[in-house]
């Protein structure tokens, strides 16, 4: 009971402190530079003024982020299964994945636009590229960190490779997988925003948050820019909350990272 209350109060307190610091800096800035950090009031006004653009942009970016995130999950799990097969496979394929991750967006974005067209598809694809790597590294590490004694038990049971994967390595990898998932859930919305800046389009669906951010930045609408950033963060928070919930469901009854109520 006291616990639950704290669990709500403390984060709220943190938020309050952040807003207080924000306001203090805003007031402390000279009149000349205040525009760089608009106050909370101005940002709230911006939310009101720009609600049509922002909600449309948020909707577009959410789609891109979710599709990219989903794609990253599916592909990274498959890739991790492959990579977990042996150190040789890893040393052969990891460099490829790293190269994909490290190719700068100015190269990737135009290719992507030419390939699948600008807008949602490109944004989802670029988001995928951004969210994929942390997932694949964590999931692979999880898959290869399985307790050797349990692996031997499965060998003895003459379990097939698949059985060993699904009954042993995959569940044992979940703590790593969910760690990667949290990183990816945080990177996906911001990845979608960055992708949108490089490959978004106003066609059909209208631009996303990245598109809006470029417009606001070029017009020095800093309050609106902050509103865009806050909207991105909210998307990330929501995605993270879902991931945290799933992690709890999958792990709390056995993993040591969750406090045991039955001590």
């Amino acid at each position, binding site marked *: 009971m006291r616990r639950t209350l704290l669990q709500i109060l403390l984060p709220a307190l943190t938020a309050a402190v952040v807003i207080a610091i924000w306001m203090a800096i805003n007031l402390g800035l000279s009149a000349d530079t205040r525009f760089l950090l608009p106050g909370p009031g101005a940002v709230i006004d911006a939310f009101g003024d720009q609600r049509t653009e922002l909600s449309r942009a948020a909707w577009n970016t959410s789609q891109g982020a979710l599709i990219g995130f989903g794609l990253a999950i599916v592909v990274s799990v498959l890739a991790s299964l492959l990579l977990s097969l042996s150190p040789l496979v890893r040393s052969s394929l990891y460099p490829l994945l790293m190269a994909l991750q490290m190719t700068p967006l100015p190269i990737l974005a135009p290719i992507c636009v030419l390939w699948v067209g600008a807008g949602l598809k490109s944004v989802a694809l670029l988001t995928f590229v951004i969210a994929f790597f942390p997932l694949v590294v964590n999931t692979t590490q999880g898959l290869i960190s399985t307790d050797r004694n349990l692996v031997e038990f499965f060998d*003895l*049971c*003459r379990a097939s490779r698949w059985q060993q994967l699904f*009954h042993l390595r995959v569940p044992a990898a979940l703590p790593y997988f969910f760690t990667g998932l949290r990183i990816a859930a945080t990177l996906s919305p911001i990845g979608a925003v960055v992708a949108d800046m490089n490959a978004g389009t106003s066609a059909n669906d209208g631009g996303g948050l990245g598109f809006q951010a470029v417009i606001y930045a070029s017009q020095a609408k800093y309050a609106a820019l902050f509103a865009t950033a806050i909207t991105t963060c909210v998307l990330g928070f929501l995605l993270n909350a879902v991931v945290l919930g799933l992690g709890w469901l999958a792990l709390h009854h*056995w*993993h040591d990272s969750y406090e045991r109520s*039955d001590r």
Partner: protein
Amino acid sequence: MAVFPLDTAPRPSPLLGRMSAPPTVEFHGVTKRFGDGPLVLDRVSLTVAAGDFVSIIGPSGCGKSTALRLIAGLSPLSGGRIAIGGQAPEEAAAETAFVFQEPTLLPWLNVAHNVELPLRLRGTPAAQRAATRARVLDLVRLGERAAAHPRQLSGGQKMRVSIARALSLAPRLLLLDEPFGALDEMTREHLNEELLAIREQERWTAFFVTHSVAEAVFLSNRIFVLSANPGRLHTEIAVPLPYPRTPETRHSPRYHEIVANVSRVLRSVVDAVA
């Protein structure tokens, strides 16, 4: 004390396509070292007949667990050869169940699922699995803890789950590494008797590591005494008590004589080390 038939539906051996028989096990000059460490097992040779119940005793660290792991094919030999029913350990058609020295349970599965896991991996239908699981859990007296996770169990309970899991398999080769060490004397005797009762129903060759000479004598028809540093086969002792053995066996003078004899051998082995 009721004895339940355990998963006795005919199972084809993966290689022979028919019910497999308990295998013979032969060690020919088996040598084992880890990496470039010292010798752990030194030229161990022994022959075990099909259906033998063999106990291995010896001081801590003499290579008992290592020997079982070699039989199971979990660890490569450094020298010599092991034949199980004439085949190399990795290829042996015999179905092996291993109760490891540590419980080795999957922490994310509850007791019931842990016990059912090997059957599940074999594709046994759910109904049959559930029946077998209920039987073996009753056997180790853990029927009521079926829903608990391993971390909620006592040390002895975890070990009993591991034993139940092995028994659910109706194996042809049974490797037991101090399975009853963490149990109280009464539970231990109960499981000793159950084990022998199951042996009357099914047929397997068993290797049983224990520190209890009495237990070794009660269960097995042959006892191998290992000496340590490096592990060598010191003595092989036959136990000429007839099966089936019953609680009364423990009170027979013959039994006590053999126990005293084995203890003396073991003591001489350990004293040689100390």
